[in-house]
């Protein structure tokens, strides 16, 4: 692999945002994702390759280490920040069509429910896998999902719920989405949700952990 990309991969994997950032201690003073991305672009490396060969594999490693309990969330968040610093450089190329996003993922915690820690983790890991995220936040009703879908046609939807009394709102939201855009792929999750419930309300996929969501989306995209 190109040495520049290898360095960028390392910076993202270990959460080195930019040269000034103190974290991680062992990379102190060295270039971060910010600088390394600029250098890669300057060296004429294709933006698509930067994404596919450095950022996504880096976040893939991070996700794997996280699933294996080898790192904690803050480390993962630092990597996500580093990736963000890199993505800032790549943004224009998405707009111009030079990079194709893997797809758009609209996620939210359903109406009545304010639990968002799990949802945020899922969003972060999906973003790391190269998807564009539209995070609608918490307490989101069907209308707002439909609106987001009309702005992002073809997006995959993710619903999160942590309360047994808001899980039922998931069913409603799924029904309304399937009514207006039957082809929309919908994924559900959250502690009280399970595969049976997912089937029952007519959603397409359930994963107990973000990892499963990422794997499923990657399959969709490939």
């Amino acid at each position: 692999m190109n040495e520049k990309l290898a360095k960028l991969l390392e910076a993202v994997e270990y959460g080195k945002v930019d040269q000034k950032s103190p974290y991680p201690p062992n990379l102190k003073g060295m270039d971060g994702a910010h600088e390394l991305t600029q250098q890669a672009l300057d060296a004429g490396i294709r933006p698509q390759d930067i994404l596919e060969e450095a950022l996504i594999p880096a976040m893939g490693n991070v996700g794997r280490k996280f699933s294996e309990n080898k790192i904690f969330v803050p480390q993962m968040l630092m990597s996500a920040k580093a990736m963000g610093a890199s993505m800032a450089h790549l943004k224009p190329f998405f707009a111009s069509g030079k990079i194709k996003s893997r797809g758009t993922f609209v996620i939210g915690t359903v109406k009545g429910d304010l639990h968002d820690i799990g949802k945020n983790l899922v969003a972060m890991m999906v973003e790391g896998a190269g998807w564009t995220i539209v995070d609608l936040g918490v307490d989101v009703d069907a209308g707002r999902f439909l609106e987001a879908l009309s702005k992002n046609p073809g997006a995959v939807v993710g619903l999160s719920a942590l309360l047994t009394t808001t899980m039922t709102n998931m069913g409603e939201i799924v029904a309304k989405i399937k009514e207006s855009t039957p082809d929309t792929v919908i994924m559900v999750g959250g502690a009280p949700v399970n595969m049976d419930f997912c089937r029952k309300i007519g959603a397409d996929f359930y994963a107990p952990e973000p990892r499963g969501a990422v794997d499923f989306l990657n399959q969709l995209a490939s």
Partner: protein
Amino acid sequence: MKYTQLVISDPSQLIFGNTPYPVKTRRGLDIGGGQVYSELNFTLPVMSINDQTLPQVYDHYRQITEGALERALHLNSKGVILEFETLLEMTKTPAIGVEIVKIMNDICENYYQKHGLASEIRLTPNDLREFERPALQRTSRLLEPMFQLFEEGMLAGGDLLSIESTGGKEVSDEALMMCDIKAVLFSLAVLGVRDMQFLWKKIVALAGQHGKIAAGDSACGFANTAMVLAGKKYIPKVFAAMVRVISVVRSIVAMEQGAVGPDKDCAYEGPFLKAITGIPISMEGKTAACAHLSPVGNISSACTDLWSNESVQNIKLLSGMAPTAYMEQLEYDVRLMNTAIKKGTTHSHILQQLFVESDVYTDPQALVLDPANVIRISSALIRGDSYVANARNGALEFIEILEETLATGQMTLPEMESSYIPMLREELQGIPDSESDFIEMMLPQIDSSKFILSEYGL
């Protein structure tokens, strides 16, 4: 902080079922007066709450209460607390919550009159303010239904008042995920403390007006969230244990405002509150495995006065409904402690010792609950002049204890965990004594679009 001295300073006095300031209830429970009681918690199975389903909702609560009290009676229970922790709709529309309290209270009264079984309801409305972001802690219209439920609910028989209030949570959520201990401390010892002062003044006044019991407030959204995240190995246990210690300075504000206990289960600040203030407390451990897994299954009962299962859905198990089954489990746990109390201090101390030693060195979160450590940390928690200083001192004392314990070899931690210790100490040491200095230091570092200082009286 109001408290400058420990009410219980001898670890051997910090024990289950007894406390210097017990709380007597309407139907004769004497909480902390020589007896541990069960505190049963429960919730609905998967269902919506709306006009069509309301009769079923009421039926569930009726069935839960009857099933639980019938079982408690069968097991010769000395008394039971039923916690009615509302679901959102029941606070948003207080009439629903009040109706459920009435249903439950009628059944409690019936068991009391007919069979002499004493029970009381702990009423825990939701803190609706978290629906607005940034939160309007003092000016929100949502305070109205909350206090309507408090007032009408207590008149309907919800004698013990609690809440899991959320002041500061808008900062804490992200701070937990980032393991940013300074931001956690800011959320708890500055924002949380100020919101508690505001909220509990009102709750205590209302309770006083009607002769009801202002019980307590647990930092569930902070310390319990940290424990769940640590349980999933998302954040270090060392960090989660420290959050718990820091949350004490926030939760104790309820007592400063006049709350008398029993403190609420679920955040495990209880033992510290008991040591500092002498109020009775509620704790949960192994028998709350229906609600969340736990690293403190036994040790959490070491000095508790109520023993809780946190929450279980009204679903069918092979034996019967889940709340009935959990009522039974709590009653047997409590019987064991009460038998020990009856047999005298040797027995209670040995039982406590077994509770403690079975968990203490398995997890930093267990370590902080050892009565001896509770006393040490509590002393540190009241040493300073501000909530900020106290929180910092308590957290540093926890690090001392942790390092001493690691040094003896009784406890070991993986590198992933232990590497956090020096980082945390360094961050803590950078925290100044004075609240205003600390605020000045923190404001540039936190996303200030998330909260409104004036809503915290700042």
